[in-house]
């Protein structure tokens, strides 16, 4: 079944107060990002470096991945390879079973969301606790995250208060953020101490050193990776960077683009298991390699998951992350999902005015608006756009290649439309006119006036 962004968006827009609250919350983050990025004179140069490093790495991905595996192995880390989500989940489950793990603490990882790891493990009797605060909130509500950096941005304090009251037994109606955060912390502390394994995502994997870097603001990844004896890190193949010194380019860009902070509170390097423990890294492809072969879309793989394109996107801000019905929403999610499953996600490349703001905020310069434009052409080629649209556009071209006929049609419309009763113009077939008046019809077209002027001369 294909997803329907326009319908989902219309529902979100219908609650005007909440829609504007969501829009303002994200615009606030975008403004913070602007201030942070403009505080660095070499910002645009950094973006250029990041683009070049990523593009170079992606065209030599096999070399860097193998270098990473070799160096990680030397450090006592076990490296696993998973071709898809199923294999990833099986590897993680095997490791957990072998170590008799009944409770797993997880720090936020969009890859495990993509692989639907939580339900997979839960159905096999393993308790999974998401430990990022936002992620924990949506987990308790049994919802997917609506943003990749701010997973619960669609929720208000009062929603969180209700959720915590139901699941953590906090006072009903108490929506004081400090009170709620403390309650979450106390509950999570208990989970960190009792879990037998921790799973983290990976922001950057360094080929040269064989270690991985995780960026968080709450320090939860550090707790999960350091307290229990077993640490599993899940990463997509695209997370690799060649050298340690390349990292500085990305850490300067990532936090500023994501939240407007100069750097995340914790930039943690994991270069081996804790004393007496084990560390495993699962490297996952899951439909990433086809991007490498695609001239039009390969840059989408350069994404460092900062979420800046979502914060700036006027559509995302007003339709919410869930309207995209894909693990990654917003502009980057629209291009990734449409490339992976065009039929299913065909409305997403049209959930965009091609304003281009996403391309400008992107710290690694992904050509997002161009990709969405190209997707539309590809959908037409594959006959996935609606017949109505295709035929309508073909008819318009036919008319436009006949200037005399086009002029005549315009003339007739300008004569007739002003005389029509309102009900004939504003009805359910006229979507434009639902909330907008039509332009006033002038008596003459510019072409008519121009021709008259020529006669006058």
């Amino acid at each position, binding site marked *: 079944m294909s997803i329907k962004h326009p319908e989902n968006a219309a529902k979100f827009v219908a609650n005007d107060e909440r829609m504007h609250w969501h829009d303002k919350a994200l615009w606030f983050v975008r403004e913070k990002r602007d201030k942070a990025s403009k505080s660095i004179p070499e910002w645009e140069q950094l973006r250029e470096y990041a683009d070049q490093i990523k593009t170079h790495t992606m065209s030599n991905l096999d070399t860097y991945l193998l270098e990473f595996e070799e160096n990680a192995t030397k450090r006592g880390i076990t490296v696993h390879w998973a071709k898809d989500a199923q294999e990833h989940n099986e590897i993680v489950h095997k490791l957990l079973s072998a170590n008799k793990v009944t409770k797993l603490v997880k720090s936020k990882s969009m890859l495990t969301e993509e692989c639907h790891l939580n339900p997979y493990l839960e159905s096999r009797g393993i308790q999974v606790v998401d430990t990022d605060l936002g992620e924990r909130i949506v987990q308790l509500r049994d919802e997917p995250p609506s943003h990749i950096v701010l997973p619960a941005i669609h929720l208000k304090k009062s929603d969180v208060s209700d959720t915590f009251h139901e699941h953590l037994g906090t006072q009903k109606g108490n929506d004081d953020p400090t009170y709620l955060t403390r309650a979450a912390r106390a509950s999570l502390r208990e989970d960190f101490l009792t879990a037998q394994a921790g799973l983290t995502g990976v922001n950057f994997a360094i080929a040269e050193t064989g270690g991985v870097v995780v960026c968080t603001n709450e320090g939860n990844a550090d707790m999960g990776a350091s307290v229990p004896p077993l640490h599993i890190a899940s990463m997509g193949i695209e997370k690799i960077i060649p050298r340690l010194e390349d990292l500085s380019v990305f850490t300067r860009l990532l936090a500023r683009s994501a939240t407007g902070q100069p750097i995340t509170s914790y930039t943690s390097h994991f270069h081996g298991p804790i004393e007496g423990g084990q560390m495993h890294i699962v490297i996952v492809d899951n439909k990433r390699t086809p991007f490498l072969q695609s001239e039009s879309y390969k840059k989408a793989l350069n994404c460092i998951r900062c979420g800046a394109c979502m914060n700036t996107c006027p559509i995302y801000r007003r339709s919410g992350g869930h309207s995209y019905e894909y693990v990654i929403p917003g502009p980057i999610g629209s291009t990734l999902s449409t490339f992976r499953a065009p039929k299913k996600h065909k409305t997403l490349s049209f959930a965009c005015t091609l304003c281009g703001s996403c391309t400008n905020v992107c710290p690694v310069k992904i050509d997002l608006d161009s990709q969405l434009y190209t997707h539309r052409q590809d959908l037409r080629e594959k006959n996935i756009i609606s017949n109505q649209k295709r035929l309508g556009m073909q008819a318009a071209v036919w008319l436009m290649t006949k200037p005399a006929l086009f002029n005549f049609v315009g003339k007739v419309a300008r004569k007739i439309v002003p005389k029509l009763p309102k009900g004939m113009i504003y009805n359910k077939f006229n*979507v434009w006119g639902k909330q907008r008046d039509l332009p006033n019809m002038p008596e003459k077209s510019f072409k008519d006036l121009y021709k008259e002027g020529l006669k006058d001369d």
Partner: protein
Amino acid sequence: MKKIPYGRLGEKMKVGLFIPCFMNELYPKSCVATLKLLKNLDLDVDYPLEQTCCGQPMANSGCSKDMKALAINFVETFKKYDYIVAPTGSCVTMVKDHYEPFFDEDDKDYNKVKASIYEVCEFLHDVIKVEKLDVSFPHKVGVHNSCHGHRSLGLGSPSELNVPPLNKLKNLLGLIKDIEIVDLKRDDECCGFGGTFCVTEEAISVAMGKDRIKDHIEAQAEVMTGADMSCLMHMEGIINRDGKPLKVMHITEILAGEV
């Protein structure tokens, strides 16, 4: 006013006026203003009658392959001019950025058209380098920077980039006497028109338009102006439906003193 540099053999520069199809039909006043503005600069302006549509609505809907004939017609119609000038950022972007698949890489005619097509403000600002406009407009004006003009053509520096501030529209309006340009909270936020987006995503499109209008009204603008009539048409439709106290004018009307 500065005179135009003369072309080959001392002839006046020949300018082909390109008017978007819907502007021709619905906004003749803005088109006349554009023509007048160019003629006042002592240019040899011609409006070729064979023109229709640049093909943008089709291409943005995914049907770019279906509109090849329009691209060829466009290049045929306009290749003979020294400059092609249009009162629209988005149609110019269409010709500049999206016609490539229809022509060979070394197609002389298309390369010439691509290099010589300008949005009218860009043309006045960068080619003519207008320094004086003998016009008064004693009103508070909000400038809607349309996305294609602003970001694709570089009519202004996008708020996302860390680059020196620039706004060609505001620079031109700044030459006008008695005008007051108001500051908007979101200087280059999209209005939500987006071609067929305004119909396929009607709910969000209108919500975006309303927010943009609110920004202007809160800044106490009396007039909203811009270089893309399509954005302005969308917002004018909402303003008229909601009875908001804001007048919409294409920037050429203000610059030409057509009040």
